[in-house]
């Protein structure tokens, strides 16, 4: 594949069985969904930074994951801090039906960190798992092979299209395109960028289909697999750790 998120390392998280990594991703996502207190959420987010770093994912990659994430975080923080219909006991600021208070701010922080934690949970999986392993793992978990392949490939294409998008942007800006600040006019100004992106996507799909067919994909007969997956003790340990984390979250909620 052209350019993907995977970072080749011989490190502990990378070596885990892909099924284990799926399991952990699900556990992290569940924890992120269930945690209700910003401090806990912060701890989870910290853990999701420590894990990739401990498996030798370069810090710069974590930083670049934050680049699209921080504006989203800020928007959620700002919008989430306002409550409609004023349920807050203590209120710092009020304007008609809209108010800002400590409870709504805490909730907004939790919500924003939750989105970040979810993004990092999935990034951790993609940073440490090769495409072939993703497909093998999903298939062994019962997904039809074609579906696993499609899913894995589309995940890997995200960065490729990100790069093509910026190349198109560069080309059109060089021709004099200026994206206006007014969002309504900006939407129209993006047409010269979006249309080439769609055309490129269609061409790519076409080429991919041909490439897969040429390699015999879809031919009749039983698929064989070169990749043998094996669970090791480290996988058991990691899953146990993830499960313990989720238990702790559940307990802290008093369930």
């Amino acid at each position, binding site marked *: 594949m052209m350019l993907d998120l995977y970072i080749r390392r011989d490190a502990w998280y990378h070596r885990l069985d892909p099924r284990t990594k799926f399991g952990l991703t699900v556990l992290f996502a569940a924890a992120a969904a269930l945690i209700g207190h910003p401090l806990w959420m912060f701890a989870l987010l910290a853990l999701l930074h420590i894990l990739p770093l401990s498996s030798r994912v370069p810090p710069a990659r974590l930083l670049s994951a934050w680049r699209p994430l921080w504006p989203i975080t800020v928007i959620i923080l700002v919008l989430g801090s306002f409550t409609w219909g004023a349920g807050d006991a203590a209120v710092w600021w009020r304007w008609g039906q809209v108010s800002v208070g400590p409870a709504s701010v805490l909730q907004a922080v939790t919500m924003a960190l939750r989105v970040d934690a979810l993004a990092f949970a999935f990034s951790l999986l993609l940073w440490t798992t090769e495409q072939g392993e993703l497909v093998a793992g999903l298939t062994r978990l019962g997904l039809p092979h074609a579906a696993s392949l499609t899913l894995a490939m589309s995940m890997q294409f995200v960065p490729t299209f990100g790069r093509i998008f910026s*190349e198109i942007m560069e080309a059109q*800006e*060089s*021709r*004099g395109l200026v994206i206006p600040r007014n969002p309504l006019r900006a939407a129209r100004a993006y047409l*010269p*960028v979006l249309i*080439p992106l769609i055309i490129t996507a269609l061409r790519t799909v076409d080429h991919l289909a041909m490439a897969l067919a040429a390699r015999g994909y879809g031919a009749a007969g039983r698929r064989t697999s070169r990749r043998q997956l094996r669970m090791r003790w480290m996988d058991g340990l990691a899953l146990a750790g993830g499960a313990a984390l989720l238990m702790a979250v559940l307990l802290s909620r008093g369930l």
Partner: protein
Amino acid sequence: MTFPLVSVEEVWFRYDDGPPALRGVSLEIRRGEWVAILGCNGSGKSTLVKHFNGLLKPWRGRVLVEGVDTRRRQVGEWARLIAYLPQHPDRIIFSASVREEVAFAPRLQGVSGVELERRVDTALEALGLQDSAELPPAALGHGLRRKVALAAVLAQEPALLILDEPTNGLDAGSARDFLEVVAQRHRQGTAVVLITHDLELAAQYAGRAVLMQAGEVVADGPTRTVLGEAALLRKAGLESLPVTETAHALREAGLAGMRTDLLLPEEFAEAYLAAAGGGRDGR
């Protein structure tokens, strides 16, 4: 005082998660020049030219276009002075017809009416696209799409035309045809910056060559002189032209008077005869 078209001053640049891609590059592009930028993959050629119209902003140092720092304007505002043809024509094409595609950039500059017609027709004609003018460009073949992309940037009528490996994947004949169109514009006064791996094309068209290696300019001068530096080229990961190689070999073999700053086979023949001492009627 007249400013150079582009002046790059001690520019350093790094992409977010990487080592510096440019390390203290300085150079000027003057009006009407044809400059070839040479270097192996990853040496920083594209990164450098993307600084010329502010697509990238220096991390250290500065880039001036006609004396104005590129940081002071948006990229789109340089379009009437500088055009950039990306390697891939599909990064450009979006319009419903070839004619519309070519008219896009001049329209953004506020050109309209007769002048717009003139610009579009001139560009279409230069590339022989008159018969395809009403066709949807995205549906054309790869070769034609490249021509549409070139026509689209020619219609900008810039003072500087930047071409990033425009002949990659073209056979020698098509590459030459393509560059002949550019050469025609150059003769009318347009400056050209051509990124290429093809030293023969550089030798044929560019008056000046800039050799890059690992983010630095290691040679900058008349194409003849730069291409004659076999050792430098080799160090930068490029192979010299056969004439240069042979000239160096002759010199090492003892032909002390052999010149090595040669570009064309005819020049080689003359230099050889002169150095061998015999001249045309020999012995």
